[in-house]
């Protein structure tokens, strides 16, 4: 596994030594996972949810009661990050 590339995709910084440590640990974990390949799934559909529910939707009606008014943001303020484009 290209640990560096995966860390980049995951938006994580690796500390010195972590690349090698994780690489070994991931290899072990994937070995344990590989047993699932013993099972023939050629005729099997994948399951991503177990509820059997479909078409769960919401009416298009405004509910302002959940709007956040305090705490992490003061009314009318922006969230900020260091400039993404300098002098663009």
């Amino acid at each position, binding site marked *: 596994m290209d640990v560096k590339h995966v860390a980049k995709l995951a938006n994580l910084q690796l500390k010195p030594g972590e690349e090698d440590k994780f690489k070994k640990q991931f290899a072990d974990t994937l070995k344990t996972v590989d047993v699932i390949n013993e099972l023939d799934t050629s005729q099997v559909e994948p399951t991503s*949810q177990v509820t059997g529910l479909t078409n769960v939707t*919401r009416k*298009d*009606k405004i509910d302002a009661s959940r709007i*956040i008014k305090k705490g992490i943001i003061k009314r009318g303020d922006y*969230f900020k*990050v260091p*400039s993404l484009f300098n002098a663009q």
Partner: protein
Amino acid sequence: MSWQTVLGFEVHIELGTNTKMFCACPADHFGKAPNTQVCPVCLGLPGALPVPNATAIEWCIKLGLSLGCEVNLFSKFDRKNYFYPDLPKGYQISQYDIPFCKDGQLLGHKITRVHLEEDTGKLQHQASETLIDFNRSGVPLVEVVTEADFADSTDSDRFLKELQQIVRTLGISTADMEKGSMRLEANISIRHPGDPLPNYKIEVKNVNSFRFIKKAIDFEVARQTQIRQAGQIPVQETRGFKEASGETVSQRVKEEANDYRYFPEPDIPPLEFTKEQIEIWRRELPELPAQVRQELISKYQLSPHYAVIISADPNMLAEFMKNPVKPTADALVNKRPVQTTAFIPVDKKIVEKILVANPRAVEDLKAGKQQALFFLIGQIKKQVGNVDVTLTQKLINEIL
């Protein structure tokens, strides 16, 4: 050797629903104080869960039907994973392998897919920091993807304007380019006729008018032609458009291939539609611009040129329909005052007779099709002459 343009589009349309795509915050974000229309869901707070907006789904499918698409009877939402400060959850809820609609066409151009997703927050870049407003985060966004089958910018101009008109006729969005409720992304490359698709493509985005996208495409084709004439391949990248100079400029060089790691959204059960439901939605569609044009030409003997101009403007169309004769069209198109002629009074009995003689139109009218009203008034005019449309309309309504 000559060059051929390879041109296709991704068009994003912000829906004008009351609420956002997955929460009950107001969707109308334009001009609102920053971060005043945000809740746990659209701000990506811990533990918040999305619940889809039924109207947004219906409108997305209606747009697809208007574009002649096939509707997938089984569909679902997926997570598109990537990091950007305007994306509060670190993923966008979108649709991957099973969009609501696929395989349509408009003005002879193929529509690959029409799917539903959520908008991101809005960034404002300043010298030392970037400001983020999440009012737009989670607003329903329809993405229309076309095949790269446009010959040039004139070809695409016609298409994009038609698409905007359809969206406005459906009443699902203002499709206002300046306000960003309709956003165009052109994928442009060039090749020699008969060659396979080139192995690069330039995305031009953040262009806020039809005129500018046309200019941007023309500029880009010329720029790429120059590069390729010199035996080189343009760098694959996203480019913006500078209005002042009429040039496209590099926005950022794509970092390595994006890997969005799509997977089915576990927080939202899949969606299933019956054929009956789709048919109901199809029947609810209003008359689309193409149909209106057709009727202007065949029923009122207008030239195609006039039909296009008049159908494109709802006010003009309404004005024309008050007295649908050629002099009215002449006056409207040439921006002259519409001549008022003395109306011939209309007899209620004649109206009744016409209604009896046209049961289908009456049915359509009862189903809410405005075009049927115009048809009936046209029939009355044929019999009586120039009648007052408003009065006649009133009479018809009274009788029905």
